[in-house]
């Protein structure tokens, strides 16, 4: 048989099996054609095995060994038995590799994930290149599934139970040196030498364990301690995920109950679990996010006709938390940014922010002390505009005041070159209005980061009537380059994310005024899967800031955005949130919550109201869905997936729900509409007045995702 996906040749009694033959895409995946060819090659190897001294698996593709199974294939699965069947087919092929009577070696250079690592694990030896691109891992859990090709069976046997659980449950990947340390990889070589070194391992016995390793094995590889390990890990998984995620728990079940089983019966359990998880709603939601994130990587905005400006050097105007965070991002991307502010004290604040971000990376060993010094020092903190003529991308993050921002832009524009892009990190002011301050508004746009910059992936690119397509595309590609998630939005109050967030925070104020307790309120949001309740979130944002933004929304959107007075009452009392250690909650010096702020009780009604958790959740999330509908109607963004991506990456809307609108679609829009109409008559006519867009969807018997297709 001839092969198109995999090369197969025998040289000097060594069989070479090479993935990625004729592959024009950037990654090799285990698609159906590849799996079919692999199955046939493995059978051929069995037949020829007596004439062979060994088998070497490698990849023709630079920087990719095997990136895993084809995810579109997983997404197309619809029934449990079909999914379990696919898993078994893969298991069978890999079992046949494991059963080969001759030495088998996987030479891993580049990405080796999921099915790719499971294949490597079925080989007797794994060798890896020391390339920075080499990484090994089983990230299936992130898609809400279990590694289905024997990974959960073979990994603990290779590297011990504790390490295996860590890798499988978090989905994290290891670099080559770390993989060698845990025993996943036998030896590491420069990639150019990998294939030549491999035959030396054909007849090598596994080195005998050191005393330390033997002790460790003794401690972890017996029935009692394994039970304890599983129990501990289960507790920690529940704590970390609040029990929202099925996959890690299911994986633990499979591994725990399969502990004493042989290969065949263990793998049957793994395949069955794969079947259940792969078609679960949660996994489909996580797959949905995966595809949305992949989709974002391709720019689909207004077409450019001229060459894009090159964005090599950066500058941040304003050195607050945001300015410092932006300078950090630019420094991390090698842009040697200038950070400008009006006083040395302000500059020190910005330096502190970037330093603490880099220090985090240093602590996690992502960078060396030398790199820490180099990158932090690559930020030039200064009071004047010297050197700005070299800046290609300027991001303004000064105080949220239109007049000041306009003045700053008019001044900044005189100090930069003609192709420099000028952007504003405003969270609420009109970008259209701001653009009027510029002589050349075509190179201006909003570039809205979320706080804290180093943790929040979303960046809103806000366009206006005079912006050039080249500006938008260059910014879009730059956002991707600094490993953030871009979404292009039209100008409007609160743009995309803050506009949808506004009712969430606003309703919280109304609910408190009605007598719902802060504890019930925040708990209801947490139980829905939000990373924090509205009270905690307001403290993070800053209550005075929230009041300001709410005012902008009210002015722009009218009565349905009527602000609750509660936040302004807090702001008046100088309860500003985390920044002055006193808001809805009290904070210690490190910013950790000590407890609720009891001084709030005077502002709350004496009579407490007990409201069911579901009702609180409906009160919080229905107006968000309604506002999202209004946003689509106004054309702020074009599709439901942009809304969902924005909320997941901007405010941490629970990923397992697949997004706000995907959640709404799955609940049924007729139900959502009815609930809104109900609240509109019982709570507030304006705030719950259903958007025409939503009414139309229900009338046309369609939903958010169908409509936007």
């Amino acid at each position, binding site marked *: 048989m001839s092969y198109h996906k995999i090369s197969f040749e025998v040289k000097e009694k060594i069989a070479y099996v090479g993935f990625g033959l004729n592959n024009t895409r950037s990654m090799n995946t285990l698609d159906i054609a590849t799996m079919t060819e692999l199955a046939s090659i493995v059978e051929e190897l069995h037949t020829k095995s007596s004439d062979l001294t060994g088998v070497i698996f490698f990849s023709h593709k630079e920087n990719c060994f095997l990136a895993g199974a084809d995810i579109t294939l997983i997404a197309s699965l619809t029934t449990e038995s079909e999914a379990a069947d696919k898993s078994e087919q893969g298991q069978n092929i890999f079992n046949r590799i494991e059963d080969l009577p001759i030495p088998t070696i996987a030479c891993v250079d580049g990405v080796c994930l999921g099915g790719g690592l499971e294949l490597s694990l079925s080989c007797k030896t794994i060798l890896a290149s020391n390339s920075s691109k080499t990484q090994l891992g089983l990230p299936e859990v992130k898609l809400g599934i279990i590694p289905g090709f024997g990974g959960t069976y073979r990994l603990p046997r290779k590297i011990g139970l504790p390490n295996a659980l860590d890798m499988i449950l978090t989905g994290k990947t290891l670099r080559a040196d770390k993989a060698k340390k845990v025993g996943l990889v036998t030896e590491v070589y420069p990639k150019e030498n990998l294939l030549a070194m491999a035959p030396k391992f054909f007849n090598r016995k596994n080195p005998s364990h050191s005393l330390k390793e033997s002790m460790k094995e003794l401690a972890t590889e017996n029935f009692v301690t394994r039970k304890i390990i599983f129990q501990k890990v289960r507790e920690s998984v529940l704590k970390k995920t609040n029990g929202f995620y099925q996959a890690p728990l299911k994986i633990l079940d499979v591994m725990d109950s399969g502990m004493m089983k042989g290969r065949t019966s263990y793998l049957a359990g793994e395949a069955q679990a794969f079947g259940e998880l792969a078609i679960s709603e949660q996994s489909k939601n996580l797959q949905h996010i995966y595809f949305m994130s992949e989709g974002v990587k391709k720019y689909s905005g207004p077409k450019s006709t001229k060459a894009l400006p090159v964005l090599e050097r950066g500058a941040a105007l304003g050195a607050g938390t945001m300015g410092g965070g932006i300078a950090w991002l630019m420094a991390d991307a090698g842009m040697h940014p200038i950070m400008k502010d009006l006083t040395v004290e302000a500059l020190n604040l910005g*330096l*502190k922010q970037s330093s603490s971000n880099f220090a985090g990376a240093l602590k996690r060993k992502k960078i060396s002390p030398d790199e820490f*010094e180099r990158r932090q*020092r*690559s*930020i030039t903190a200064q009071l004047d505009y010297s050197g700005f*003529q070299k800046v290609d991308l300027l991001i303004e993050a000064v105080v949220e005041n239109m007049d000041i921002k306009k003045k700053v832009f008019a001044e900044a524009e005189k100090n930069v070159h003609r192709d420099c892009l000028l952007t504003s990190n405003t969270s609420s002011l009109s970008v259209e209005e701001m653009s009027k301050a510029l002589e050349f508004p075509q190179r201006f746009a909003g570039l809205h980061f979320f706080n804290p910059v180093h943790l929040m992936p979303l960046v809103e690119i806000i366009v206006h009537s005079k912006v050039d397509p080249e500006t938008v595309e260059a910014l879009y590609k730059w956002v991707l380059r600094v490993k953030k998630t871009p979404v292009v939005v039209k100008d409007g109050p609160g743009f995309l994310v803050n506009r949808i967030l506004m009712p969430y925070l606003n309703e919280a104020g109304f609910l408190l005024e009605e007598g719902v307790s802060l504890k019930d309120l925040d708990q209801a949001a947490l139980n829905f899967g939000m990373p924090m309740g509205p009270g905690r979130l307001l403290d993070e944002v800053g209550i005075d800031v929230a009041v300001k933004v709410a005012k902008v929304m009210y002015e722009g959107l009218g009565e349905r955005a009527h602000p609750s007075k509660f936040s302004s009452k807090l702001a008046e009392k100088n309860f500003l949130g985390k920044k002055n250690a006193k808001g809805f909650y009290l904070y210690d010096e490190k910013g950790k919550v000590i407890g609720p702020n009891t001084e709030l009780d005077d502002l709350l009604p004496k009579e407490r109201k007990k409201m069911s958790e579901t009702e609180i959740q409906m009160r919080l999330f229905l107006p968000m869905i309604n506002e999202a509908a209004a946003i689509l109607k106004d054309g702020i963004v074009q599709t439901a997936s942009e809304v969902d991506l924005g909320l997941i990456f901007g405010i941490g809307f629970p990923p397992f729900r697949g997004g706000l609108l995907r959640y709404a679609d799955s609940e049924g829009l007729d139900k959502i509409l009815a609930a809104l109409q109900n609240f509109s008559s019982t709570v507030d006519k304006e705030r719950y007045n259903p958007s025409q867009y939503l009414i139309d969807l229900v009338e046309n018997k369609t939903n958010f995702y169908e409509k936007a297709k």
Partner: protein
Amino acid sequence: MSMKDVYIVDGKRTPQAKAGLDLKDVQAPYLGAYLVKHLIDNTEIPTDMVDEVIFGNTGTPAKYPNVGRVIALEAGLHKKTSGYSVHRNCASGMEAVSQAYLKIASGRSDIIVAGGVESMSQMPLMYNKEMTDLFAKLMKAKSVTEKLSAMSSFRPNFLTPIIAIEQGLTDPFCGLNMGQTAELLARELKITREMQDTYANNSHAKAVAATKSGRFKDEILPITIGGSLNKLLVDDVGPRENSTVEGLGKMKPYFDKKSGTVTVGNSCPITDGGSALLFASEEAVKKYNLKPIAKLVDYHFHGLEPERMGMGPLLAMDGVMRRTKLSLSDFDLFELNEAFAAQILAVSIALKDKEVAARFNVDIAWGELDWSRVNVNGGGIALGHPVGSTGSRLIVSLIHELKKRKGRYGLASLCIGGGQGGAVVVENLIR
């Protein structure tokens, strides 16, 4: 060979801080890299059009044997940029400048950044010869007995470290410490303790006034400091506002403890700092629309007996004035390093006293120094003397102050440990 004009586009320096204080954690290359980046960023010169980066440095950190090249890369210049380091003791920064001058004047290069850096805080302690020999023996030993025998030769005094900085400040030829050479000049030229303390006090007063009035703003570029690199240092750490002649008079002589006059108070402190200047040819000035502050007119280095190294400036100034056909009265400003009050006072005596000058083979008396034009913003005694940097730091200070005063010619000079002097003449273009 006809020489071309050499322009000084701009020059910047770090704030200077006594060793062990605010700049102690800043490694030598980082005292220069940000200055270079700033100088280039502030022009239209692309980062791949700098021909050379030359830096003076005497401590030569073990990690950075060629600090000049490291500075070029850390400054974000193109990888193809040539970079090297030079060493002429206290005048290393001036040596870097003189090489930039020659390369541009001869037409070899068009754009060069030259300067100096010194982290005296980070100068190492070293193993002494006995310990080093023991290590060598251990390395060679093959058998256990050989190793044991080597080990048994160990004595506790092997661990007495050599202090690099102390050794560096002692002349290897005449065996005198730099302070002792100043004592010698003070004795021979009858420079009293009071003259020295008054001079030192004046240096502090001028530096404090300059800092307060923002006179250094154009020449100092704030630098990021601190263990976590999260704050800026803006001003020099050294000039003492509360300095008095009486206070200085109470300090004990340091180098000749019994009968000397040179104290820590009337000497320059050991200091960390860096400085850099951007040089360009006429072609480069036109091509990149540069606005140079000054022209570098010429330079001169000259040797003399190591035990009277403090008199170096006499010979260097004599040399450069003869080359340029300028005399003392032609200069609107002088930046003369204050290694020791006794040392700079000795130079001023020799300039006007034909008999003293003759001892150093200078056959004329150049005349009286106009002190109102010398170190107008204080000198090394108040600001400190980061050895590798001072030679270029003087020129940075000189061009900015000349520009402010709208003067024409300026002269920078300093004495050099080991028995040399160096001097540079600049002409201000913004008058």
